[in-house]
């Protein structure tokens, strides 16, 4: 896949952005987790620290990796910008320089008892604007007459409550 868009990169770089990783739970459901450590790496992959080796989130991500399936990442900024990335887990590591950098980061942020189970590295496969404005514009364009008739762009102000 080509490198991530500027919008996605900007959101990833912004500490105020909510970084959500969601994996399917194999029973028809899914599980969302905030992963503030998610970052874009120089080689264009995404990486984040999984705090607990024995967590359900970690097992679910491994199951996706083994099945060759993808997870989903949602980036949501306080100003309403939002971006959705479909990403396939490509590697899990609990040793080596990359792991150490996340481990030290967690140690610095959460103190001497912090814990990092491992680091997941994902490859972005697809991305789309998930912001409200973009999605509403798309829906309005695709289905111009699929809306409440009392919306302001259908009904002049006078007729509405």
């Amino acid at each position: 896949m080509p490198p991530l868009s500027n919008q996605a990169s900007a959101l990833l770089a912004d500490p105020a952005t909510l970084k959500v990783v969601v994996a399917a739970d194999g029973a028809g459901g899914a599980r969302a987790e905030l992963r503030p450590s998610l970052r874009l790496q120089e080689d264009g992959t995404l990486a984040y620290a999984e705090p607990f080796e024995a967590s359900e989130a970690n097992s679910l991500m491994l199951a996706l990796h083994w099945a060759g399936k993808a997870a989903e990442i949602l980036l949501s900024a306080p100003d309403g910008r939002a971006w959705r990335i479909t990403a396939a887990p490509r590697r899990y590591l609990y040793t080596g320089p990359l792991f150490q950098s996340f481990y030290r980061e967690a140690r610095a942020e959460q103190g001497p008892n912090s814990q990092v189970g491992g680091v997941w590295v994902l490859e972005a496969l697809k991305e789309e604007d998930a912001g409200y404005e973009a999605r509403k514009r798309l829906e309005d364009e695709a289905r111009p007459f699929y809306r409440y008739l009392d919306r302001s762009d259908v009904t002049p102000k006078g007729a509405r409550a």
Partner: protein
Amino acid sequence: MAESAILKDGLGFQQAAEKYPAFPRTVLRKLDTALRGVLISPAALDRARQEGAVYEPAPEEGAPPGKPSLRGAFFSDATLFRDIEVDEQAFARRIKQGSPYTLDLVEGKTWLVDGGVPVEQAFFSPLPSYYGKRTQRGTLLEKVVGAGPANCLNLNILSYCNSWKEHLPCKYCDYPPSFRSKGSFTKEGWLTQEGLDDIAEAVAMALQEVGHFTCMRIQSGSDPHGERPFENEVAQYVRVLETLQGVFGTPKVPARLVASAFPKDQSARVAKAGASGYEPHLEVWDPQAFEWVCPAKARYFGRDYWIQSAVDAVESFGRGNVCTQFVAGAELAGPHGLPTPEAALESTLEGAEYFAQRGVVPVSIVLWVGRGSIFFRDKQTAPPLEYYVRLAQGFRDIRRRHCLASDINDYRSCAVHPEADLGRLDAHRAVNGKPGEVPCPH
């Protein structure tokens, strides 16, 4: 020879992958590399050196120069595979099946290659930073505490094994009688005070590297002697545990003992001395094969004694913190072994179920026929790949059914048990620790 579909089919990797599609490819490769071995190319060895993953043993007077070695490598999901040899001579140390894999550079990246085809990308595991440093006494730290697979510190506390002394070694065992760390053991083979001091210093220095180790494994040769069964061996463990309590500053030490089968009061004693886990390995479940493969265990003090020792220890260590290991394939070794892989599966899985019902975690390893062992001399071979696939699935299903995970012996802190790799998907459902605990909800 009785009829065996596993032997008749003799499935290779591709056929096994097609027959067992739900079996993760990486764990299947782990099994296949354990059976066929891996030769690393000079180019890949150089890459491993650049990444600090090659151990070059320091020259020792009067000893032949040691060969460079690696501590295995990872697949992309962090499944670890070992058995990487640097040359044909090292490779010949063990009896293998079929043709070996190679570990080579392909377009600048390290790949496991099978018959010229790159099949799985591989990643080296760097040595810990304490390697090459020395204790105040000048002992190389890695001679005191070896770094096993990535997360485990390994400690040998006896320089001998009584089974070898009495010429009754376990028939698969190729451990040389004398252990490393010269000068740290008394004539009797027990740790000297200097040896203990070295241990305390080495462990403390090793743990200065953050984010590397999650557990310790303390093992020794077997010594059944003393007023009570294995009294001498227990005493040594207690001495080491008390030393480590000083290092960690806590009553409990994050270490498991891979030790002989102690009586109930003795396992309680080492638990009290700080051990967090205990592994009296039964090795073989079938009674006749047990006697044949492990004559010293049979003599000291028999199969039932070894079984009961593990079961009794659960009371002191807690459910899931006592493991027993099966050397999978040893139960088939002629002439007294079981007739077919199918019979071996049935027997060994019966043993796994027996232990799991009582809170003891069953683990398996692939039979390793190494030079120096009796099996090597007798040219025994491990059964085909499919036997190990079905055994790993069987162990995983038994552990899943009993909500058991081996915290002390998982895919990171030991990395040789395929069912532990499979069990990663159940990690969040296991109930370990005190009996009757509810599964950890997180």
